[in-house]
């Protein structure tokens, strides 16, 4: 029996690193400190045992060797004129580097799961920058914490305990008691139920509410109507007072802002609010990243290509234009003629029309588990689980780089090996 302490969790952007893992006979038998999400992932369950292929997506898969599957994957990419390589967030940075190299070689569009999550936040950062801090700053200093369009009780269960609400810090010795917690959301979530103040906003009206807050903050409450987005002016004025009274305010935001009607403009506006609050007191804003290494892809892609995601290599040099080069854009325009989906589930998390197009084109899946993408795939290559069976780098939601552990020995090839072999085969096909 082996006990691994200070292990890191490969589920959400919290990347909790205080897990204890008990391993017996190369199986994980117990986990301490993980939340329901992390425990479910780490304990694992049945997975795809061997590579499989089918020409017709409606027929059953046939089990094949890794050699055959890798060769077929390479053929698909080699023959493609407009390949899409999507997913990445459940894999380590070492995998991302291989993926970007392959995308360069085949002139693909490479995009990650942020495309349906926080890519709009990146668009806002292009406009306004990102005034933020590492999570320990919140733990040690923040006395006013706002969750806007974010429901950590469900999506980041240990965030409040480890970092933002209950955590005790150097200047916040009282933990929860020393903090004012505000939740802004369209419905009363369980997170809202724990807040000191719940601000219920009409769905789609966040942009208006942020603008109203900014107007009040800058001394122009007179232009604000009696009700904005279902919230009374009185409540908005009080909210601004509460925000201004903070010693260190922090706003955490999620899909409520990135996915509703104004998309990235919501975050653009929110960042401006934070910047303006800094004239009065210290404020930071942080995106609640969903996958444990979605942030990592954005980091690697940025330092390698200059752009965080949705990078089109068709010209031999990186080209970036979300709205044109994001995964759903090319799928909805039926522009892409082949896809590789790795460490991400487009089949489950893209709108139906995108999945319809995936069903029309050759699809290679690289993943440990049978999921919705498997249903539309032609070639399926199972791999070792990053962060459980493979060690390597991941970036927490606040941009802190950490090294994920290997808890048990892998029985299948790793993503890195598979990508290397596909790349080698593509080069052979090219005659290089």
């Amino acid at each position, binding site marked *: 029996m082996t006990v691994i302490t200070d292990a890191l969790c490969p*589920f*959400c952007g919290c990347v909790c690193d205080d897990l204890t893992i008990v391993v017996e006979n190369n199986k994980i038998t117990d986990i301490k400190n993980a939340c*329901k*999400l992390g425990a*479910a*992932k780490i304990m*694992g*369950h049945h997975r795809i045992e061997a590579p499989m292929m089918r020409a017709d*997506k409606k027929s059953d898969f046939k089990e094949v060797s890794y050699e055959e599957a890798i060769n077929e994957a390479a053929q698909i990419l080699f023959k493609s004129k407009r390949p899409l390589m999507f997913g990445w967030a459940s894999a380590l940075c070492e995998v991302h580097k291989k993926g970007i190299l392959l995308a360069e070689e085949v002139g693909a569009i490479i995009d990650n799961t942020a*495309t*349906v999550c926080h*890519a*709009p936040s990146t*668009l806002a950062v292009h406009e306004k920058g990102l005034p933020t801090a590492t999570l320990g700053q919140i733990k040690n200093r923040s006395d006013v914490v706002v969750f806007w369009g974010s*429901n950590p*009780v*469900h*999506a980041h269960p240990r965030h409040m305990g480890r970092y933002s609400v209950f955590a005790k810090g150097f200047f916040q010795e009282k933990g929860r008691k020393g903090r004012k917690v505000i939740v802004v959301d*369209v*419905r*009363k*979530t*369980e997170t809202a*139920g724990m807040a000191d103040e719940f601000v*219920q906003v009409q*769905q*789609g009206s966040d942009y208006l509410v942020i603008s109203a807050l900014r107007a009040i903050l800058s001394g122009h409450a007179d232009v604000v109507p009696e009700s904005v987005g279902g919230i009374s002016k009185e409540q908005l004025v009080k909210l601004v007072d509460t925000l201004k009274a903070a010693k260190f305010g922090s706003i955490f935001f999620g*899909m409520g802002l*990135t*996915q*509703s*009607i104004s*998309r*990235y403009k919501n975050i653009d506006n929110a960042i401006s609010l934070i910047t303006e609050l800094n004239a009065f007191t210290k404020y930071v804003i942080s995106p609640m990243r*969903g996958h444990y290494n979605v942030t990592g892809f954005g980091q690697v892609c940025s330092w390698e290509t200059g752009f965080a995601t*949705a990078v089109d290599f068709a010209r031999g040099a990186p080209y970036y234009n*979300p*709205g044109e*080069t*994001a995964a*759903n*854009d090319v799928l909805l325009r039926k522009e892409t003629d082949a896809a590789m989906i790795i460490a991400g*589930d487009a*089949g*489950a*998390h*893209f*709108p*139906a*029309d*995108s*999945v319809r197009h*995936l*069903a029309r084109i050759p699809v290679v899946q690289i993943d440990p*588990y*049978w*999921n*919705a993408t498997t*249903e*539309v795939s032609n070639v399926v290559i199972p791999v070792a689980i990053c962060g459980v069976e493979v060690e390597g780098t991941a970036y927490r939601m606040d941009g802190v780089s950490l090294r994920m552990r290997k808890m048990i020995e892998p029985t299948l090839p790793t993503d890195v090996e598979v990508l290397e072999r596909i790349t080698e085969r593509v080069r052979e096909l090219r005659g290089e």
Partner: protein
Amino acid sequence: MTLNAILITGRTINQGATIENKTSPDYQEATALCELNSKDIGILGIKPGNQISVKTDHGEVVVKIKENNGNPDGMAFIPMGPWANAVVDPDTKGCGMPGFKGIKAEIKPTDNKILSMKELIARYK
């Protein structure tokens, strides 16, 4: 009785706990559902656990009703996943992000069965 609602989609803990096991009944249990408050469920004349059809301009899907009194009147919530994505707005509005929240939906009770994940995706092939 039809209910006109605004549909939003998003994460839940049970959806997240089963996300790596999408062929399981647990995943379907966690994700093929729609949350409405008790008043709206009353308008539909059904009980929690019954089936409803959710129809938008982009598609139609059958899911199970779940009660959530945190929802305001006329707000439907379906956890992110294949059932939600059968009806969300694909339009990325020129910025890459589809419309996963704020879709107008028509909700009706139905006797049609809830499709499994495989059956749902099979319809796209």
